[in-house]
């Protein structure tokens, strides 16, 4: 999960990495007020959970409160990669002598932590990495290792930090590494770390991504207002609802509601729909061993999405038992009712029990199953995919 720039910076501050004395504002009057209090030229930055903000016009300067107000108005009306701008960060504008890059991340393929640094920070760092790999310094560490000051000094020297700033930058690198470990981060970046005209070193931007799965052991982050969210972009209201219910869910642009079992087939099933000419309306995963209640909620998400024209269901019972799956579907049919056609296939663990649950429920209330096409192990999954695309394409299929 990605943090907003201002959230990342508040973590920097906690770990004694110097940041600009900025504040966030949700409205233009607030922006003007902050500029009046700072009483100096400012930079105003859109707070969005995506990259490429600068190139999209999300970072602007202003010399006084009046111009700041009109700049802010423009920013609030901006969309960056489709995401609205609801919050601005207002900071003093610095005269910059030099820009450095410092980051810590995980080399997953080699199971190591890596400190990355460069004397040429800024937006073109990836290009630098590709064209001038010699300008990038990497230090690999075990997750159980400390980063010592003398190691950070070596990194700082290698990226061309001069004597005067050596100890300061080494301290920043050590603190960034401490923060990375203490917050269970996947990525922390200061880009750029700027050397200002008056010889201050300041983290001018932050990029921080934390491990959702480790949040449980960081109540201090929750106390700071940092909660689960996407790696990129804010959640839609449906995604927020799904998260509340504990269901991994992503909205897409299509019209076929995807109701798969397992994250793996959740991804590949979408490919299958594409192969047969359809467009999925979502990604979804049931999570391990979902209860009937969660299965029912998954269907609620799809049925109440006006864009969904048909639902594709597939369950290969592993840890997700087919009997629980069937119970959940029946619960949904009884308590909520189905307004879209659904085609489903079920096999795997306890699938016979699942079939029996379906049959019993259908015998009892045949009308509940009017829009339900149920298949077993005998029908290939490719055929189910084809049928889902067909159902979505029917006029008045609803």
């Amino acid at each position, binding site marked *: 999960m990605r943090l907003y720039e201002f959230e990342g910076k508040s973590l920097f501050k906690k770990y004694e990495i110097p940041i600009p004395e900025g504040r966030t504002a949700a409205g233009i009057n607030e922006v003007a007020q902050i500029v009046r209090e700072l009483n100096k030229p400012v930079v105003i930055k859109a707070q969005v959970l995506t990259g490429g903000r600068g190139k999209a016009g999300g970072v602007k300067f202003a010399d006084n409160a009046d111009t700041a107000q009109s700049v802010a108005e423009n920013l609030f009306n901006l969309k960056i990669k489709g995401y609205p701008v609801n919050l601005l960060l207002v900071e003093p504008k610095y005269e910059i002598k030099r820009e450095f890059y410092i980051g810590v991340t995980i080399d997953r393929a080699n199971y190591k932590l890596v400190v990355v640094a460069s004397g040429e920070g800024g937006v073109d760092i990836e290009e630098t990495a590709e064209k001038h790999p010699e300008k990038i310094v990497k230090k690999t560490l075990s997750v159980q290792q400390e980063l010592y000051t003398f190691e950070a000094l070596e990194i700082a020297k290698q990226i061309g930090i001069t004597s005067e700033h050596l100890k300061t930058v080494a301290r920043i690198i050590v603190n960034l590494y401490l923060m990375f470990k203490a917050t269970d981060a996947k990525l922390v970046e200061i880009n750029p770390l700027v050397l200002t005209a008056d010889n201050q070193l300041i983290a001018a931007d932050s990029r921080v991504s934390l491990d959702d*799965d480790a949040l449980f052991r960081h109540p201090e982050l929750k106390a700071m207002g940092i909660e689960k969210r996407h790696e990129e972009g804010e959640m839609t209201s449906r995604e927020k609802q799904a998260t509340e219910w504990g269901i991994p869910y992503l909205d897409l642009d299509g019209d076929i509601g995807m109701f*798969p079992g397992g994250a793996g087939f959740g991804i590949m099933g979408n490919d299958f729909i594409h192969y047969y000419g359809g467009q999925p309306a979502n990604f979804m995963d049931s999570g391990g061993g979902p209860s009937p209640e969660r299965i029912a909620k998954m269907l609620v998400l799809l049925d109440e999405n006006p864009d969904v024209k048909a639902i594709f269901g597939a369950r290969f019972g592993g840890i997700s038992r087919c009997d629980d799956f069937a119970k959940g579907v029946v619960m949904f049919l009884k308590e909520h009712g189905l307004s879209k056609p659904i085609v489903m296939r079920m096999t795997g663990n306890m699938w016979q029990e699942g079939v029996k649950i379906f049959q019993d429920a259908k015998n009892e209330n045949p009308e509940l199953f009017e829009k339900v096409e149920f298949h077993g*192990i005998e029908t290939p999954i490719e055929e189910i995919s084809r049928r889902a695309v067909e159902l979505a394409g029917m006029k008045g299929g609803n």
Partner: protein
Amino acid sequence: MAILVDKNSRVMVQGITGGTGQFHARRMIEYGTRVVGGTSPGKGGQKVMDCPVFDTVAECVKETGADVSVVFLPAVAVKEAAIEAIRAGIKFLVVIPEHIPIHDMLHIREEAVRGGTIVIGGNTAGIITPGQANLGIMPDIAFAPGRVGTVSRSGSITYYVADTLTRTGYGESTCVGLGGDPVLGSTFDEILLKFEADDQTKAVVMTGEIGGVYEERACTVIPKMKTPVLAMIGGIFAPPGKRMGHAGAIVEGKMGTAKEKLEMLADAGAHPCRTFKDIPETLKKLGV
């Protein structure tokens, strides 16, 4: 033969008295897996399905000779459970739970390398050597003994692939679930080399997906393998995977889209497949 587990494996279950652990221990035993015991601190001396329960893995190993362990515990407990198993001498460890903190997995991997233990997972459906041993949460229905090995990031994909192989008469030597978490105990290349060394395995189906870093490692070993490798990648039509900032790009290189991964694997000599139906067709062409 087979890889990693067979009928002689002495299997234990960490978390054997919990609801999920008990449910799947029962299934594993019913399948014929040689489950010799399990652990649940504070419940030592009890029994689950005739299997003795111990307080610690070390006791279980000492009393039962267990050499393989399957972990059914909450994600928060996995780091210590894995280290306990590795230190107690377990040689193959199957980590079923999902959502294990990434830093914990890095720690586990280091302990595993040091201790000489092979770990699969987290977030794996497990491993099955059909007719011999079924470790984890896989449904028996999909599997039959045979000559094709599978290795996949996903449980559900494993079932579909095995189901396809079973129905078309190839059957499976061993099916390995690497796991769906972002950092895993083992990588494709490591498992592919196990299959390469196995007489029974005449071909391997590997199924990866968008967003990981382990598919790329497979490309380093496929060119050296005699056993043919079939490759499927999920997420061909998904939006490109999100990169982990600049540092991710610098450290892990350009993270491929699913399409690029599939092309890279094909370049390394793997045989790409699109849907499950392509698998038996390709095997037939290869004369497996």
